[in-house]
């Protein structure tokens, strides 16, 4: 089990009703964290248009997760 801080942005934050939370979960990669928090952020397609960052660095869904990491869940971006 790992202790992970998860942060939600934009629509994900609105769905979750919170900015961040700390979870103790059995997660190997970023995709595991996404799945574990699915009921919070409301999205069912992690490999789709969503993005993830780990400790403020852009990552992929296959990126490994370590104890103490902060995982940022980004819904589809729309800059410009």
């Amino acid at each position, binding site marked *: 089990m790992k202790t992970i801080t998860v942060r939600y942005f934009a629509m994900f934050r609105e769905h979750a009703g919170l900015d961040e939370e700390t979870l103790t979960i059995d997660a190997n990669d970023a995709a595991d964290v996404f799945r574990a928090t699915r009921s919070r952020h409301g999205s069912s397609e992690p490999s789709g248009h969503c993005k993830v960052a780990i400790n403020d660095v852009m990552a992929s869904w296959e990126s490994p997760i370590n104890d103490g990491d902060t995982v940022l869940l980004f819904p589809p971006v*729309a800059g410009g």
Partner: protein
Amino acid sequence: MIELTTSAIDPDERRRTLFDPGAGAYSSFEGWIRNENEGKRVLRLEYEAYVPVAISEGEKILAEAGDRFPHLHAHCVHRTGLLEIGDCAVWVGVSSPHRDEAFRACRFVIDQIKVRLPIWKKEHYADGHSGWVNCERCARSA
């Protein structure tokens, strides 16, 4: 250089930072808030950014542009917060020895900015509803 700001963008001031006696071409792009999107009347927009990653990813994009286009100077500013119709949401400016590279570099930067930076926008419509742009398919509710 990439900047995020909650104040109005002054393109002219930023443009001066790109001056170079060897630059013969300057190209800029601005995204303006328009009053309509996909058939819906838009009243205003709200931009949210996650600044630390928007800055680091933006710097990466500008560095990639510099690798592709020699002697390039490039600068980008993105607004956050509440914007009204006609406001400038994003400005990209580049200078380069020649015209073709200037256009291509400017286009490269804005195209990448739009798909890679953790920035989101919520449209507020004339009918009272609002919605996160590009988020229909990723969410359980509209």
